[in-house]
C-alpha cells in the first residue's frame, strides 16, 4: 500500500497577523508558517494505515518557508520519503498549487500511490480546496470531510467515513486510487520529540523536484482588492480590571440574569 500525503504550509494564526503595506496580503516576513492542521491529521491517518497494512508513506509539498522542518518531522514520525517541489513561485494560491502538484504526480513514475491523502481544507484556501483540485487533474475519485479510512487487502477499494451534519456520519465505498480530504485521523497526531526530528535531519534527505514549466490553462483569477482585520465590530463589552475584579463583575452579570 503506497500512500501519498500532500502537505501545505499556512500562517500560524495563533500569532498576531500583520498585513503587508499594500493591504493585499499578509506581511510574509512577520508570519510564522506551520503545517496546515488537517494535513497533520492526514499524515497521522496515513501512518496508521501503514502500521495496519504495511507499505510506504511519502510526503509531498510545494516549497515554502519552514517546510523542511515539517518534512523532517514527518520522516521522524515514520514517513518513508519526503519530496518537495521547488520553483512554483512565491506563495501560489491553492488552485495553482493543485495544478502544479497534479502535473508533478502525472509526470513522476516514482510517485504512483494507491491512495492520496491531504487535509480537508486550509485557512487560506480562498480559491479552492487542494483535494478536489488534485482529484480533478489526476482523474481520480474524491471524498472530503473524512474521519476514517479502512482499506481492503487488495488495496483496490477503501471504506471511507465522512462527517455529516448533526453528529451523523456517512460510510462510502471508494475505488482506489483516490484522493481523500481528511478532517481528522482516528487518533490525535502523534508527538515526535525534537531529538528524533534532529536525528532525521542528520540521517535522511528531502528529495527535490522541479516544478513543471507550463501552468494551468488560464482561468480568470479573482482579483484581491483588499485584506484587512475585521473592524472591531467587537460587540463584546470588555470587563476590565484584575482577575478578581473581572470575576466579580462577571458574577454580577450572571446573577443579574438569573444564571447563577
Amino acid at each position, binding site marked *: 500500500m503506497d500512500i501519498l500525503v500532500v502537505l501545505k504550509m499556512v500562517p500560524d494564526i495563533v500569532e498576531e497577523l500583520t498585513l503587508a503595506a499594500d493591504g493585499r496580503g499578509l506581511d510574509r516576513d512577520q508570519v510564522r508558517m506551520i503545517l496546515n492542521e488537517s494535513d497533520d491529521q492526514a499524515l497521522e491517518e496515513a501512518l496508521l494505515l501503514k502500521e495496519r497494512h504495511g507499505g510506504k508513506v511519502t510526503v509531498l509539498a510545494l516549497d515554502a518557508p519552514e517546510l523542511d522542518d515539517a518534512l523532517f518531522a514527518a520522516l521522524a514520525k515514520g514517513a518513508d520519503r519526503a519530496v518537495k517541489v521547488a520553483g512554483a513561485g512565491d506563495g501560489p494560491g491553492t488552485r495553482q498549487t493543485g495544478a502544479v502538484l497534479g502535473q508533478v504526480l502525472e509526470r513522476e513514475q516514482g510517485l504512483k500511490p494507491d491512495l492520496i491523502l491531504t487535509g480537508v481544507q486550509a485557512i487560506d484556501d480562498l480559491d479552492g480546496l487542494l483535494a478536489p483540485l488534485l482529484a480533478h487533474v489526476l482523474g481520480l475519485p474524491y471524498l472530503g470531510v473524512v474521519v476514517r479510512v479502512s482499506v481492503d487487502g487488495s488495496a483496490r477499494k477503501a471504506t471511507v467515513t465522512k462527517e455529516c451534519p448533526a453528529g451523523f456520519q456517512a460510510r462510502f*465505498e471508494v475505488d482506489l486510487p483516490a484522493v481523500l480530504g481528511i478532517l*481528522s485521523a482516528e487518533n490525535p497526531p502523534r508527538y515526535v520529540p525534537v531529538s528524533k526530528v534532529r536525528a532525521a535531519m542528520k540521517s535522511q534527505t528531502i528529495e527535490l523536484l522541479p516544478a513543471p514549466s507550463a501552468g494551468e490553462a488560464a482561468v480568470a483569477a479573482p482579483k484581491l482588492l483588499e485584506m484587512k482585520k475585521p473592524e472591531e465590530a467587537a460587540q463584546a463589552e470588555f470587563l476590565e480590571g484584575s482577575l478578581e475584579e473581572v470575576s466579580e463583575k462577571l458574577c454580577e452579570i450572571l446573577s443579574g440574569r438569573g*444564571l447563577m
Partner: protein
Amino acid sequence: MGSDIWVVAEQWQGQISEVTHEAVALGRELADASQAKLVAVLLGRGAGDRAELLGDADLVLCLEDPSLDEFVPAVYAEALSPLVADREPRCVLIPLTNLSLGLETLLAVRTGAPVVNFCADLQIVEGRLEARCVVYGGKIEATLQVPGPTAVLGLWPGVRPAASSTGTSEVEVEVIPISLPEASKVRFEEHVEPEVGDVDITRHDVLVAVGRGLMDEENLAPAEELAKLLGGAVCGSRPTIDQGWLPLSRQVGKSGLTVKPKLYLALGISGAPEHMEGVRGAGLIVAVNTDRQAPIFQVAHYGIVADVLDLMPELAAAIEGRKGAASRG
C-alpha cells in the same frame, strides 16, 4: 456574461437546510441589485415536490435521479457542470458544509470557472461582483472582485439571516432530465447515527466551552469545576476533540452539535467560523481569550482578556463566595 444568480440547495434527511435559506436570501439581494433571475437548484428524487419550499427563487431547477439522493460532491459536480456550462449563470452559490465541501472546487474546475471560498457577503459594486471573505480562522477579511462569465462562490453558513419564505406556489419549476453513468467510483453505503454521549450538551442551559487555549488535558479539571458550580456541562471546539481531551459527543460547531444554551462561557476559544456556526443561538456569550483581536469577541456579549488558566480559579472562587454569602444570608 451570464446574469442569473444560482443557489445549489442542500437537503439533509429530507429537509432543505437552514444554510440553503441563508444562501437564497443573499442570492435574492444580488438578483434584485442586478435585475437578474434567482435560480435554485434542487437535486435528488422528489425534488419537484419540494420546489415550493424555495419560493424566494424565481425558478427552481430540479435534477431528479436516484444517484443524487445522497449529497456526494463528486456526483453532484458531474450532474451540475454540463448545466452550468450550458446556461452560464453569473455565479453559483454553494453553502460550505460537511455535506457540500468540495463541490465548489470540483464544479469550478470542471467548468473552467474561478472559485471564491469562505464568502461572508456578496455585493454588486459599480456593476461588478465583489465578495467579502473571512479567512485565516476569522482573523482577516479579504475583498475580492469576482471575474466572469461564471464563478462559483462558497458561502460560510450562519453569517446572515435566512430567508423567511413560507413558500409560494408561484415559483416556476423546471425538471431537467439527467442521466449519470451508473457506476460511480464513490458509492454511498449508509448513515451512521451519532454516538450517544454521557452528557447531552444540547439540553443544558449553561455550557462551559473549552478551546485550544486550555493548552492541556489536565486543565479540564478547573473547567469541569466551573461547569459544576454553574450547574452546566463542559463542551469544546474541534481541537479539544481532535486532541482526545473530550469525546465527540461534546463537540460544538460545524462537525459537532448546534447548541442554544442560556449561557455559553467560551474559554480559550478563538471563534473560528466553523465553531461559531454551532453557537449562534446562545442567549448570552461570555468569552475569555488572551487575544483582544480574537474573532470570538465580535460575537460575544461580554469579553475578558485573560489567560483562562489564571481566570478559571479566580472565577470559581468568586462564584463560591457568592453562593456562600447567599446560603448564609
